[in-house]
């Protein structure tokens, strides 16, 4: 019990530096809801119900642009498909946990807590409470940040270019995601595709298309190397 509690708070503490991204991004995602003519109810529904990050922003912008429901949903789910990968790799740690803990761990799965738990868990730390500590704080801050963004986001003048925080957060996360040569090629391919496709394809289909191009490049490149050779 004592060890679990200590691990929980250690996870929450390690999450602190990552919260800057969550705060600013949540603020932008919340402001986008208000900008689309929606209110706090929709903002909280989106944050609690989907608990994404970029997917929430993308879904809001697509809905505002009157994109077809299928396009909006598929785009958001493609963006969130990385959570499937995270859950699959974290799953072994949850084997001996009760069903409720596994459901909670699944619901809270997001970039920061996953990365912390998989890379920072030391020997004297229990990984599941550590993960839950980081993930709970991430969740709480995200809910508050999107709420504040919805309520006061419209007050920030456009000349501050605060929307630029969004690509900056993705640049920071991209730097963490790129660990080897193939990762770098995947990122470069997707980057080039998105620069060309996103402004040109309707309904923001360029996002899905560019992610697909990047992933396809990765798989194609792996065919020329033995499995497991990538870092």
């Amino acid at each position, binding site marked *: 019990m004592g060890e679990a509690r200590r691990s929980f708070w250690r996870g929450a503490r390690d999450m602190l530096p990552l919260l800057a991204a969550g705060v600013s991004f949540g603020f932008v995602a919340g402001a986008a809801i208000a900008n689309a003519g929606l209110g706090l109810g929709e903002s909280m529904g989106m944050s609690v119900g989907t608990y994404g990050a970029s997917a929430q922003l993308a879904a809001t912008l697509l809905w505002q642009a009157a994109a077809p429901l299928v396009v909006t949903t598929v785009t958001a789910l493609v963006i969130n498909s990385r959570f499937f990968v995270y859950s699959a790799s974290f799953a072994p740690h949850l084997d001996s946990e009760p069903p409720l803990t596994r459901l909670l761990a699944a619901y809270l799965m997001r970039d920061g807590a996953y990365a912390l738990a998989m890379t920072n868990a030391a020997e004297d730390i229990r990984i599941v409470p550590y993960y839950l500590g980081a993930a709970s704080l991430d969740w709480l801050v995200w809910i508050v940040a999107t709420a504040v963004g919805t309520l006061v986001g419209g007050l920030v003048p456009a000349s501050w270019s605060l929307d*630029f925080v969004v690509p900056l957060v993705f640049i920071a996360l991209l730097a963490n995601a790129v660990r080897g040569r193939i990762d770098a090629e995947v990122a470069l391919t997707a980057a080039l595709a998105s620069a060309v496709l996103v402004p040109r394809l309707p309904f923001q289909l360029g996002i899905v298309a560019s992610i697909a191009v990047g992933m396809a490049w990765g798989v194609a490149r792996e065919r020329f190397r033995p499995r497991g050779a990538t870092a």
Partner: protein
Amino acid sequence: MRGSFWLVIALVGVGTFGLRVAPIAVRGRVRTPAFVERLLSHAPAAAMATLAVPAALYVKSGGTYTLSPERMAAAAIALYVALRWRNALLTLVVGMGALWLLLAVR
């Protein structure tokens, strides 16, 4: 109009929870096709780059994308900082600072 947004929330919410819970729920019983696993293993790098680049290159107003040299330069500086120090807070501070500076001296 608002009703359709709640429909988006419901569909994305159920789908996203499904993505998160499926590998944990079916563990040991169903194997994910290897091809799908390999494809998805590239999702983080592909998704982050796709989400970063258009917003780093263009200013979007309405449906029009306009190239912004200031944003491109600030994003390039931020990318260098992100790769060099892998620190999210530092990347945000330097990136926003660079953009404000470039917009001010334009």
